């Protein structure tokens, strides 16, 4: 049994990449035109958002695979990717709040992206809670796959609904305008975050798989028993 797996390398590579990108973004890249140094949060915030969405989408794909095949591997995929998505999503909300304070003067606003990520977090936390609640392996697979599919489908709907809702009110300037000098560290950070996420998800998948397979793998069939032979005198 080997103790170092490919996931460890991917994870470490992601961390190194992320570290380099963040050092670049924090110490070498110029301050952002409008937001100054606060704008540097971009290098952690945007990759978190991207990779979080990728993780949710992977969970959605795993959910379809799980419903289709009923296999434990896909089921473990739902769990691993939803976990990664939820952690990234929670970080995203925190970073967004911290960023909103100096730029907009508030911790929270009903901006479509912010609101959508909050709803998204609730949706996928509910999936994870659901998984802990169900005892039977087959039921857990079905139930969490269905909830994951529904949750993922809801994300764009929430976004457009909130966006529509907001357009009737004032809109904040979006931090979307990214100048050229910021692209390279941002891209590097995104890849670092992605590899980190892949490494973590793969490790979580492994431990989830072992735990789930322990509960649901087919055990050996029992040996065929000896047949009874009735004594003739006992016959009715």
């Amino acid at each position, binding site marked *: 049994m080997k103790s170092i797996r490919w996931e460890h390398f991917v994870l470490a590579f992601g961390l190194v990449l992320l570290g380099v990108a963040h050092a670049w973004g924090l110490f070498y890249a110029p301050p952002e035109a409008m937001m100054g140094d606060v704008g540097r949060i971009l290098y952690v915030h945007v990759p978190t958002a991207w990779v979080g969405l990728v993780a949710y989408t992977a969970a959605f794909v795993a959910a379809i695979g799980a*419903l289709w095949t009923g296999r434990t591997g896909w089921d473990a995929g739902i769990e691993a990717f939803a976990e990664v998505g939820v952690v990234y999503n929670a970080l995203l909300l925190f970073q967004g709040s911290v960023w909103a304070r100096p730029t907009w003067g508030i911790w929270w606003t009903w901006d479509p992206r912010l609101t959508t990520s909050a*709803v998204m977090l*609730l*949706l996928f936390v*509910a999936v994870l*809670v*659901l998984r802990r*609640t*169900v005892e039977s392996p*087959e*039921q857990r697979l*079905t*139930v969490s*796959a*269905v*909830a994951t*599919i*529904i*949750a993922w*489908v*809801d994300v764009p*709907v*929430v976004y*457009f*609904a*909130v966006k*529509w*809702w907001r357009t*009737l009110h004032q809109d904040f300037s979006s931090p979307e305008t990214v100048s050229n000098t910021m692209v390279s560290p941002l891209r590097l950070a995104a890849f670092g975050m992605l590899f980190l996420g892949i490494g973590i998800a793969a490790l979580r998948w492994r431990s989830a798989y072992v735990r789930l397979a322990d509960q649901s793998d087919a055990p050996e069939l029992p040996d065929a028993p000896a047949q009874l032979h009735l004594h003739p005198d006992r016959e009715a």
Partner: protein
Amino acid sequence: MTALVTVLWKDLLIEWRARSRAFSLATFALTVLLLFSFAVGPDTATMRAHAGAYLWLSLLLSSTLLLAQSFHVEVESNAIETVMLAPTAPAAVFYGKALANTAQLVALGLVALPATVALYDASFREGVGLMLPVLALGAAGLAAPGTLYAALTGRMGARQLLLPLLLFPLVVPCLLASVKATTLVMLGDPMTQLPSWLRLLASFDLLYWAVCGVLFGRVIEQ
């Protein structure tokens, strides 16, 4: 199609036979409405401006009870198994139940509407007739995912907790659009925004009536 009508008829028959339950549900919805006026009041202008929001929150809170109940009657003595063994497609069972739940939610809305008028001094600048499509589309939006999730949590121990946990974040777009549309009907719609909100509600309904209908079969098969 016949199966769908049978399931719908059966669900409404059960609710009619157990109408004392519907009565308690209506009382619950009205109580929630009343509580909002204590929590937010007594500023009449604020309350009037937010009457639509209170109406829909009251309906949303009541809907979890209604939806859980609609599946509880199926599982309490395992009647769902008889339904499954009948030659009915699961989709027919889903649409029958979802329609029955929509109808009950609309009825509940029609009970809560006069109370909203009385408690919050709500008026209908765009005509009270427009409330009917808003109620129907909003109720349908709560009923489709609600019926699916009621089936999903129906056999679990912690269903009272799980159903709202799953349903509430999901129906955010539906709630938002319903409240907006209701408020526009109540306070007037000078910029003709109502049709776009109704369109949003209709798209939400279409999406979830389709997706949940497909997934329902997997949820009730064991």
